[in-house]
């Protein structure tokens, strides 16, 4: 159900490193659930990495900006881990779950 797309490119001088992630849940409800769960945890170094999220047309859209590539990589990688966990939780315990 999830098809992540990521690309990196440098634009701004300050927040030189950025990257976008889009996951299509094909469900406004599921995308919003993941959004709500992941929005609780703020970025640990807001002066080094910024994260913006939104839900649109059943998709979760995330934009990262960082001052150095290593911060971007660390933040993005940790985010993908928890995003995967949240998604798997919905898949396994959502409607029609079997024990």
């Amino acid at each position, binding site marked *: 159900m999830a098809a992540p797309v990521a690309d990196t490119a440098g634009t701004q001088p300050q927040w030189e490193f950025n990257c976008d992630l889009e996951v299509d849940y094909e469900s406004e409800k599921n995308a919003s659930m993941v959004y709500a769960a992941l929005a609780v945890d703020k970025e640990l170094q807001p002066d080094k990495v910024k994260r913006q999220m939104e839900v649109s047309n059943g998709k979760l859209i995330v934009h990262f900006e960082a001052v150095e590539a290593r911060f971007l990589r660390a933040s993005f990688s940790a985010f993908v881990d928890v995003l995967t966990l949240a998604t798997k939780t919905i898949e*396994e315990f959502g409607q029609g779950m079997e024990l």
Partner: protein
Amino acid sequence: MKKMIALGFEGSANKIGVGVVTLDGTILSNPRHTYITPPGQGFLPRETAQHHLQHILPLIKSALKTAQITPDEIDCLCYTKGPGMGAPLQVSAIVVRILSQLWKKPIVAVNHCVAHIEMGRIVTGADDPVVLYVSGGNTQVIAYSEGRYRIFGETIDIAVGNCLDRFARVLTLSNDPSPGYNIEQLAKKGEQFIDLPYVVKGMDVSFSGILSYIEATAVEKLKNDECTPADLCYSLQETVYAMLVEITERAMAHCDTKDVLIVGGVGCNERLQEMMRTMCSERGGRLFATDDRYCIDNGAMIAYTGLLAYAHGTVTPMEESTFTQRFRTDEVHAIWREKKEPSNMNDLIQESS
């Protein structure tokens, strides 16, 4: 009346556990999985979180199945807010936030240290003991007073379990089932006591200097054949446990309490229990301790403590369901321990909601 049921998640260190309990303390299920590193190595946050990611969902299924309940029957979802390692804590928090939305159930955030105490109290039946909480990350002597668990004494640097774990790495003992267990077994064969620094500072203790000393001495003495690894394990255990018994005894004198409860992972060490029991009996008191099923981190202790808070009106809104590496025992208002007068109950529920 239907029994209240809670599902609890614990993942603050190297164990991930999911437990189902009822308000009277009955444990319906309590599966857990431990991340065991190779001998000579400790567990690091990132790898530990990866371990938890892999095991948490199957553990939930197993917990529900063993308890023979469906999500509908659950009253609240409890998780460890802290203290602990950040990345591993986040795993439980994320799953609870999703399940809360899927199943429409409230969340209750739980303090890990308080959960150890409440689990120990319900399992042993100790009513108002002095608590020695000893684990890989924490070392505290605690007693309840006026709505909170007050810390009477604690380590000023590393936890006693951390000192033991790191010494086990020097000897490259196995981490399976735990380094502390293997030190305890080896210590039984110790014959010679080696003098180590004994560091009690008032009500507090310190272990980092002892660790540095034994790390340096161990290599030297073992090389010169002056002692065996068993002698070192024996000497280290005797020294650090004597320190813990001393500060616990002092706290007992302060609070005028005769009962002691030992909780936390190091609490299942039988030598520590034996030394503490001797001290208690000399003071005409009793020692309450549990075995590895309840001492070591588990989901049921989180579920039970969360359910106590929930039954007294506490709920954690989703936006506030964060986790934190630092979360002191005395920050928690233990509303469930306040006097239970019927006229007061409604006030309590309103106050906390």
